[in-house]
């Protein structure tokens, strides 16, 4: 065990040191440094982060000198998405030209730069993206295993209610330990989401009910149930909303609010990152993920190989639901955020579908796509300073997101362009070689 740890440390000493520096600078230093130095600290963090990425790329290229971009599926997928995003932005621009031609170009710049206008905006971008990343992960995970989870909204709602209920009613936990309270509330949300996800899983496995039908129906059940439960158990009739959660139930800030002053950022993004890593590991490194993916790719073959596809199906929906439930919990375990007993489906669940597609259903892709969404939302907020109405802004963001999700279809185009480039390069190399030999 120790030997193994030592080996790991030796193998990636630089990675370890980098992580350590990053950890200190993100979670500890902001509490110690004077506010004036925070921007510099942020710059430092960015420098270290990107520097490390660059270093890794350099290492990779050194080890694989034969590397051809057109043969890297990851690269092709990523560039497909980037092109798609550009196409999405062009569509957005078109929308703006139609609505308000005078400010369209200024507007598109505002939207694109949204999350990076100020440190505060950056923090808010991250804050906004957290539930979207999680619902995106929820949909993507189910998708990987061949299931179309349209029910992230319902799972999120159940998670949100349970978390808020614990946050309001189980104040004793906070007296025992303030950390315990929000953790239990968070886990409660995940469990509720898991249960809500497992129901369609069970129905599909043992009653052959299609998951799309079951999840859509359960969305409505969750919506009405939520209204009923709020009004019965945690209703604040003065404001017609759920009661305030106890302060101990709110997710902590972990100094992130100092790093991004005046923004709403909190521990949510850290939790989302942990979920990204866990799902990535499950899908790519474990026998469980191997089974889940094979069932998703080819159910017959998985049966032939002796995999228990029914059990896997239920587990997959369970995990998917838990992640969506977590999204709900993180959304509402914030002071000043309140669940309301209104019969409206929470939109984050559906946005998750588009984000899952845009992120090509890979956990890391979803993380990036979610941040992109958060940035657009920030941009939309600034757009109000120009002459655009909030509804129009929502439409523009929707157009951009959905046009971008078309990225899947652009991969082939990317492959061909890359190949053409490489062939040209090779030809010119050959020509040079020929000319070179002529000279002699």
């Amino acid at each position: 065990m120790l030997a193994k740890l030592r080996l790991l440390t030796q193998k990636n000493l630089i990675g370890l040191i980098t992580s350590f520096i990053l950890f200190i600078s993100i979670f500890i230093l902001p509490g110690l440094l004077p506010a004036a130095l925070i921007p510099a600290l942020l710059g430092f963090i960015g420098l270290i982060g990107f520097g490390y990425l660059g270093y890794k790329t350099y290492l990779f290229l050194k080890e694989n000198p034969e590397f051809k971009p057109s043969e890297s599926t990851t690269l092709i997928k990523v560039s497909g998405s980037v092109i798609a995003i550009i196409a999405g932005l062009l569509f957005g621009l078109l929308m703006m030209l139609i609505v308000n031609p005078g400010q369209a170009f200024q507007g598109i710049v505002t939207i694109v730069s949204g999350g990076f206008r100020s440190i505060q905006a950056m923090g808010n971008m991250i804050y906004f993206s957290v539930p979207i990343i999680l619902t995106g992960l929820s949909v993507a995970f189910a998708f990987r295993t061949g299931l179309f989870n349209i029910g992230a909204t319902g799972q999120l709602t159940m998670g949100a209610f349970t978390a808020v209920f614990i946050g309001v009613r189980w104040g004793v936990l906070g007296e025992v330990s303030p950390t315990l309270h929000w953790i239990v509330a968070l886990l409660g949300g995940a469990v509720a989401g898991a249960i809500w996800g497992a129901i369609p899983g069970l129905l599909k496995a043992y009653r052959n009910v299609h998951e799309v039908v079951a999840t859509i129906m359960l969305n409505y059940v969750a919506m009405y149930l939520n209204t009923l439960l709020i009004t019965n158990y945690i209703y604040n009739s003065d404001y017609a909303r759920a009661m305030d959660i106890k302060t101990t139930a709110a997710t902590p800030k972990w100094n992130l609010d100092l790093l991004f002053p005046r923004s709403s950022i909190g521990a949510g993004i850290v939790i989302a990152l942990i979920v990204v890593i866990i799902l990535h590991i499950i899908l790519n490194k474990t026998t469980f993920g191997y089974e889940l993916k094979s069932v998703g790719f080819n159910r017959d073959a998985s049966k032939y190989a002796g995999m228990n596809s029914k059990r896997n199906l239920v587990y997959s929906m369970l995990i998917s639901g838990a992640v969506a439930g977590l999204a709900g919990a993180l959304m509402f375990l914030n002071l000043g955020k309140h669940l309301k007993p209104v019969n409206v489906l929470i939109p984050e669940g559906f946005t998750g579908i588009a984000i899952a597609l845009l992120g090509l259903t890979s956990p890391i892709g979803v993380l990036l796509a979610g941040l992109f969404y958060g940035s657009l939302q920030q941009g939309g907020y600034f757009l109000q300073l120009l002459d655009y109405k909030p509804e129009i802004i929502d439409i523009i963001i929707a157009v951009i997101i959905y046009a971008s999700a078309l990225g899947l279809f652009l991969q082939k185009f990317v492959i061909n362009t890359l190949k053409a480039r490489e062939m040209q390069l090779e030809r010119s190399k050959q020509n040079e070689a020929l000319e070179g030999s002529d000279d002699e």
Partner: protein
Amino acid sequence: MDYIIEMLNITKEFPGIKANDDVTLQLKKGEIHALLGENGAGKSTLMSVLFGLYQPEKGEIKVRGKKVQIDSPNDANELGIGMVHQHFKLVHNFTVAENIILGFEDTTYGFLEFDEPIQKIKELSNQYSLKVDVNSLISNISVGQQQRVEILKMLYRDAEILIFDEPTAVLTPQEIEEIMGIMKELAAEGKSIVLITHKLKEIKQVADRCSVLRKGKYIGTVDVADTSVEKMAEMMVGREVSFEIDKEAATPKETVLQVKNLSVFNELLQKDDVTDISFEVKKGEILCIGGIEGNGQTQLVEAITGLIEPSNGEIILNGEDITHNSIRKRNIAGVSHIPEDRHKYGLVLDYSLEKNLIFQTYFTPKFQKNGFLKFDAIRDNAKRLIKQFDIRSGKGATTMARSMSGGNQQKAIVAREIDRDTELLIAVQPTRGLDVGAIEYIHKQLIEQRDNDKAILLISLELEEVMNLSDRIIVMYEGENVGEFDPEKVTENELGLYMAGSKKKE
């Protein structure tokens, strides 16, 4: 010049491999031109280039003497080029007629026109005796019939140049005879045909000329009439191939598999697919179940391997009743299974080769620890099998199964199942789609397994394979066991009569 198609100096690359390297193919009008080459030699790729599915990096294509650019199958259709793919491309929940007109629909005011097309399909089907029911769903008809649909699809589009990519790999001997006849008829009418096949006998039977590819390179073109089968095999493999199988007489030992009064009921057709079948397979012998496709062999195997539930009877493995055990339990107890349908059951096409090679063993301590996959062990396993079974592909262990050639996909499955080294190996059409060299190797492997005291249950439609490999033969007809034979004492002809149901032993 009277070449109808000229593919000149075609080069097509895939990651890690030149699938076609400066290949030239010239097709005369009205000829049947065979394309021969080992698994992965680049035959399907070359034809996909002609059909507009791939763009070559170099080379040009001339159709009827004119240089053309074929960017998509639609372009190919317009030039009169049709193709039946190695793995059919039919929409399973569409009817036969819908599949045939797909992409070529007539509409009136935006509504699909069916009467006229169906009339045309029926005429074509009569003219070439390609019998199909135009209203059946594809998922309900046999592969042989699906093949006919693919051919009708080409004819419906008035194709003049017909490409057949391994049309006979999935057919029964009778159906092969039929399709050979149809090809000759088409050629006599002036259509030009490219035929890809690994069966040299078929080339001898119908082809006029034969072009040979080896590892992506063009080796040459010969007139079939003055070239022996051996010579063609040598051109293709680059060494002599033996068609004879040496094997010692079997020395059967204890019983491994015992099937007692097994029946399988078909809910859809409300009749038995398998009726009251009993037999035993012993250590050290190859028992072959012969028969024409669709006489219950598939269901028999599926019942033994656990893919379907039998309605009656018992399956006993090494003295233990496994009739109702899960597939996983059967696998662990010692059953390996080379499935009939490699894409449905055999592979996860979107997994890499190395991941496909641990399909039933990923959970064993060899490949996993605490639930985490051991990637080094998986890679080593793949490298070993790739070497041993000569599985060819662009990127070795990390190649996506989807991008491998049909024959190499098959080799991967066979390698995986033989390597599991279980007491019982059920091999259904193990050499389907393999080249002669690979067949030779797989046959040797099967016999070696037998000599190592493994029990082998072989299901094959090919009489030659049946006669060469088996130690005992059982013939199935309409789900029943109609007789058991000793391959030494029975002729192919006689077996054929039992298979066709015109004779039956008591």
